[in-house]
């Protein structure tokens, strides 16, 4: 078994016990790595009903089979998996940059961390030497300070650090884990799970070789992908970047604005990718081993936030901009910078602030409750102020909002839940689902909550392949193949920005896998692995009481407040009838029951029979 390390590290922060065990070839081939391996380890290493903040909830750092190789984008990733404090189901997120390859070179396919340290600590993985170090002096340190201070303390500039900021320590339910300054394990609150374990950071130095099975074949394949990366498949990411979506979505009445009140934004030009690149982007940099580059580094040249520097992608630009009605890029860049420093999910934070603004404008929360901040839509200064409060859990509102929109709405009451835009407890990403209805269906069935990256269901809508104003029969079936593919991508940990370079789809990916690992795999087997991961995640959610049809929902506003903007989309909502039709269609296509659960036969087909007695009636 090449390119895998063949080893899993276990760390118990309560007892300080550190041990390793083998990764079997069967496990590797069945679950690939990344989120697949992570979800499998989560399922088998946790008891049903464990609170996400209970020390017994494991948090798993997993590399992919290609991490540490020269594979472009797949060479540089890692994933984090745990039970999510946002959703109560599967939490998972991936990040690229430089951390993942060092973890692989240190000799690990996965690290399973359980327990809780008695004081703030960090984990130091120096090849096979693993230590739990005192991190008390890092209390409330920003992500970048933590990174710098740990590297100083350990005396090696090239050590890679994956850390939480103040918000993770304070158990903000959408806290992120961040490596290499701005690369985030962003979604599903993984940073808060670290915080609950008193684990400030994982620092790693890996110096071992990573060898592939067929060095010449692998090198040729990498050369081919590098060539393709120079072509049209990556052009968007290398030029305007994802912020190009601002004007595209705006023209489609799909740019969610002022907390899904409007579907177009009058200030779109001022926060467009075009404007950003012309006035703010200083350089586009890249991650380890990548033949493309996408990190648009924006610097504010003048004004109150002069010098503020941050990487900016569409999702966070949108959540901190149009969604809050803010049309000032200088404030958006500064907001993004501090969100990274507190260590928060850049999508969720914007949705949380927009939720608060919506509540404020509707009189659900008062100026007294905001500590005097005028939380009107469009107030850029208020955006920055409230982010600081949430990051520190300061004041009544800051503390409540750090719980995420679902729980915050429960605490606030007074009808606030109508303004809370989330699915399964995870805040919605940047698409107006009233006008992109395949996406609406795709987001609702995602096992980690509202997500555009679990099945890419926005793609047929945006590309005009379907009537996006309607959910029709067949739409559920349509999103299944990409759902499986995305599970494979996130288990190989290929960056989704580069997915267009794998022209051959699963054929390319299976070839890539075999060249590296030496484990033969067909594209059909790889597709099956993607399906296995989807079903296992669904089962985990079911085990935790969250896996059935009633949890595949859409936010109230998406189903009840018609698009007010003039144009072809005017008056649209997702109605319940079409939505239920879509769910039925999807469950049938997945081979699931009408309650959205895998059948015993389906589990057998996927080699998951050992979990069959979890199903209703499965014990008979």
């Amino acid at each position: 078994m090449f390119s895998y390390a063949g080893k899993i590290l276990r760390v118990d922060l309560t007892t300080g016990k550190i041990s390793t065990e083998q990764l079997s070839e069967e496990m590797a081939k069945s679950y690939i790595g990344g989120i697949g391996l992570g979800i499998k380890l989560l399922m088998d290493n946790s008891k049903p009903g464990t609170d996400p903040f209970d020390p017994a909830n494991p948090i798993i750092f997993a590399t992919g089979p290609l991490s540490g190789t020269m594979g472009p984008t797949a060479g540089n990733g890692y994933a984090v998996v745990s039970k999510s404090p946002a959703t109560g189901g599967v939490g998972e997120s991936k990040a690229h940059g430089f951390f993942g390859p060092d973890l692989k070179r240190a000799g690990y396919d996965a690290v399973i961390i359980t327990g809780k340290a008695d004081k703030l600590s960090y984990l130091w993985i120096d090849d096979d030497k693993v230590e739990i170090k005192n991190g008390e002096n890092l209390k409330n340190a920003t992500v970048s300070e933590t990174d710098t201070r740990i590297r100083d303390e350990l005396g090696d500039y090239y050590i890679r650090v994956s850390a939480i900021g103040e918000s993770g320590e304070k158990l903000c339910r959408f806290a992120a884990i961040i490596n290499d300054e701005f690369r985030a394990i962003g979604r599903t609150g993984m940073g808060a799970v670290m915080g609950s374990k008193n684990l400030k950071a994982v620092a790693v130095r890996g110096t071992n070789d990573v060898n592939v099975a067929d060095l010449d074949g692998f090198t040729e394949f990498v050369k081919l992908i590098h060539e393709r990366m120079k072509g049209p498949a990556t052009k968007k990411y290398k030029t305007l970047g994802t912020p190009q979506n601002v004007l595209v979505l705006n023209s489609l009445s799909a740019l969610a604005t002022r907390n899904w009140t409007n579907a177009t934004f009058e200030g779109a030009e001022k926060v467009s990718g075009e404007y950003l690149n012309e006035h703010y982007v200083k350089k586009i940099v890249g991650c380890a081993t990548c033949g493309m580059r996408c990190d648009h580094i924006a610097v504010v040249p003048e004004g109150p936030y002069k010098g503020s520097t941050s990487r900016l992608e569409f999702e966070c630009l949108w959540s901190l901009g149009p969604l809050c009605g803010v049309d000032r890029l200088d404030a958006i860049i500064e907001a993004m910078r501090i969100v990274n420093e507190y260590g928060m999910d850049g999508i969720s934070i914007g949705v949380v602030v927009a939720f608060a603004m919506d509540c404020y404008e509707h009189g659900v929360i008062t100026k007294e409750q905001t500590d005097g901040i005028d939380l009107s839509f469009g107030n850029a200064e208020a955006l920055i102020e409230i982010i600081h409060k949430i990051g520190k859990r300061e004041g009544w509102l800051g503390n409540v909002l750090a719980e995420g929109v679902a729980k915050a709405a429960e605490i606030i009451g007074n009808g606030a839940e109508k303004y809370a835009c989330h699915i399964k407890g995870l805040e919605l990403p940047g698409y107006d689902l009233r006008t992109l209805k395949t996406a609406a269906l795709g987001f609702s069935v995602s096992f980690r909550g509202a997500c555009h990256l679990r099945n890419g269901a926005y793609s047929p809508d945006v590309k005009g392949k379907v009537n996006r104003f309607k959910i029709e029969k067949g739409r559920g079936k349509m999103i299944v193949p990409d759902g499986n593919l995305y599970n494979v991508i996130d288990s190989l940990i290929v960056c989704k920005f580069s997915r267009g370079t794998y022209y051959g789809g699963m054929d390319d990916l299976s070839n890539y896998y075999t060249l590296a690992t030496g484990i033969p795999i067909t594209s059909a087997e790889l597709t099956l692995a993607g399906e296995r991961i989807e079903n296992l995640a669904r089962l985990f959610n079911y085990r935790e009481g969250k896996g059935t049809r009633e949890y595949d929902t859409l936010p109230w506003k998406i189903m009840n407040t018609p698009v007010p903007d003039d144009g072809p989309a005017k008056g649209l909502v997702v109605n319940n009838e079409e939505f239920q039709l879509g769910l039925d269609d999807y469950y049938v296509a997945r081979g699931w029951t009408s309650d959205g659960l895998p059948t015993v036969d389906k589990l057998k087909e996927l080699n998951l029979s050992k979990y069959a007695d979890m199903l209703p009636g499965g014990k008979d």
Partner: protein
Amino acid sequence: MVRPQDRKFVSADPDKCVGCVVCEYACSLTNEKTFNPTKSRIRALRMGPLNNIAVACRHCEEPACVAACPRDALSQEENTGIINVDEEACDGCTWCISACQFGAMMMHPQKKVVFTCNSCKDQEDGPQCVKWCPEEALTFVTAQQLAQKSRISAVRNLFQEAKE
């Protein structure tokens, strides 16, 4: 006999380098037949997202590493300027590492002797990091060419009409 100003070395353009470390992987692939940046003869460094550069041996005229070596383990090739390490003679004392102002001399993690860029002299098409660099930030150049490049860009900046 190659004139000193005509000796070639690997140089990174800081405006183009994005810190992707593809050069490090290309180097370890070529020279060590594995993937391991700690065995790379060129190392990239990022200080804040905007400041990226890759550094390799510059084949100095009066190489401080050679002068520093107490065991005569280092020597410079006359024609290419490449620093050769006599792996039998080197005892890993690291004087040469202290002496090099560029951090281009390093300790090999397994062989326990120092190592540095050999310009991929065994490769027909020259340094492989240069071939692989996705940003064309690396070039295999002479001191002469570097100076010319700077002058050309200075003149372009000065005279608008000379701009491309």
